[in-house]
């Protein structure tokens, strides 16, 4: 028997029908994949092995692919600054005057803040550690808006960390692999971010729709927002720290309130990934471990109910003031009820 290179060479099947069956099988596989996808859960285990593998490979590849563009951009920037140096100088001079006023005001406000905090005994949140990463790939379509940053699990990044550019909030980490993190942008159609209007303190949910300006939904109150109002993260729900800059409110063409994102005003080459899980990490664990009850003081200084942490061997002090003193003489009998 002659050796055949193609064992299926003589197989005769009606191609059109077989192609139709192949198409149906492929479609069924696609639907099954879609139904089993759990991207919206934003959980570590939902970010599958395939996504992690592709991200791990894509990060260095994207870095290499983006390098010529980055060099060209740097070169154009250098040429632009060289050609327009006189105009740029004048513009920067004007800007310095404005910034100097703001810097003076900032010093005054910082001083006032420190004094008021000292008076009120307010404790500020400790600084949140962060990781700096470079964006190596970018998806800008209507159904998915995400970026790939070249810092991953080896840098301590986990799912849920907020991501900022030098101007404002960019999004949240939704997937982590070794050497890469997938950042879901605020503009993604699945993104929901609790925000507040700085002027009125009104709360809203920033809802992405795949376009450049996400919507402000569930906005309550009269005059809650005006054109140009600053929008910050509200910290509600504890997924993001409070007060991160998001953007400015504008009225969209559809009549809805939208946000022009601060992070969108320039190229996002570098991002900072805040290592923020929730507010619990801001608390001092050592202090929380001590279960000390606050002292309860009555009018009498001698009548402290609890003034020391309970210990297993300690005998709780006798409640002195809570027991009424025994009367020396029995109370007089009440008078007989009138008949």
């Amino acid at each position, binding site marked *: 028997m002659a050796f055949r290179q193609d064992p299926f060479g003589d197989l005769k099947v009606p191609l059109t029908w077989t*192609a139709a069956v*192949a198409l149906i*099988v492929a479609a069924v596989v*696609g639907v099954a994949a879609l139904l089993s*996808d759990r991207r919206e859960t934003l959980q570590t285990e939902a970010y599958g092995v395939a996504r992690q593998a592709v991200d791990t490979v894509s990060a260095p590849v*994207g870095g290499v692919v983006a390098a010529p*563009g980055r060099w060209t951009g740097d070169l154009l920037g250098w040429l632009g600054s060289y050609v327009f140096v006189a105009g740029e100088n004048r513009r920067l001079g004007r800007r310095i005057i404005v910034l100097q006023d703001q810097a003076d005001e900032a010093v005054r406000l910082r001083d006032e803040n420190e004094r008021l905090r000292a008076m009120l005994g307010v404790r500020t949140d400790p600084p949140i550690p962060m990781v700096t990463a470079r964006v*190596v790939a970018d*998806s800008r379509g209507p159904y*998915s808006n995400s970026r790939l940053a070249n810092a991953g699990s080896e840098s301590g990044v986990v799912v849920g960390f907020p991501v900022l550019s030098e101007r404002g909030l960019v999004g949240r980490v939704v997937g982590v692999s070794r050497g890469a993190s997938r950042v879901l942008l605020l503009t993604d159609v699945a993104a929901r971010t609790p925000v507040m209007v700085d002027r009125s303190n009104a709360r809203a949910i920033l809802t992405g729709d795949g376009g450049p300006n996400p919507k402000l939904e569930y906005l309550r109150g009269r005059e809650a927002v005006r054109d140009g109002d600053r929008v910050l993260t509200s910290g509600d729900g504890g997924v993001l720290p409070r007060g991160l800059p998001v953007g400015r409110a504008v009225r969209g063409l559809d009549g809805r309130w939208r946000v022009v994102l601060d992070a969108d005003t320039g190229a996002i080459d570098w991002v900072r990934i805040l290592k923020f899980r929730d507010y619990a990490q801001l608390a001092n664990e050592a202090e929380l471990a001590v279960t000390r009850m606050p002292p309860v003081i009555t009018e009498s200084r001698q009548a402290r109910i609890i003034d020391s942490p309970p210990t297993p061997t300690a005998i709780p002090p006798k409640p002195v003031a809570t027991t009424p003193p025994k009367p020396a003489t029995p109370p007089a009998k009440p008078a007989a009820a009138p008949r």
Partner: protein
Amino acid sequence: MSFSAARPLDPWRWIGVPALLCIGATVLLAAPIRLFGLGLPEPVFPMVCAFGWAVIRPSILAPFVLLLTGAFLDIYWGAPIGLWAISLLTAYAATLIMRNMMTGQSRPMMWAWYVSMTAVTLTTGYLITMLDVKAAPSLIAVFWQFLATAILYPFAHRLIDRFEDADVRFR
């Protein structure tokens, strides 16, 4: 008359190479580069394959390669796995069904057919996204991607022109 002498198309040439080129182009355009403050467009390159392969001839391999290409787009763009695979397969199926009507049409008419199939793909993606996240994507954003994909027809024409007559059974 027997077709045994007819040399079938080499799947690597008309399916493998175009699919790899589409993936390469997708990776290239995903670079985070801004020109004059604007980001690069994001066309759906595998749409060229979905249309071209269906016009050239029915195939057993093409739907599965399209499934894999779509899955790559889903993973690389961070979309739900299956979104682009289903969208591209829908366009492939629609093109395959209407293949007899397209045969022999002029280039502008074929471009119109391609644009229609691109609309089918993006509409499918729109509906899947609506069902998945319970929110409607921006129609303006969808239109920009539609426009960026619609202008890719010359690549599809090149693919069809190159392989349409390669298999005599499907002339």
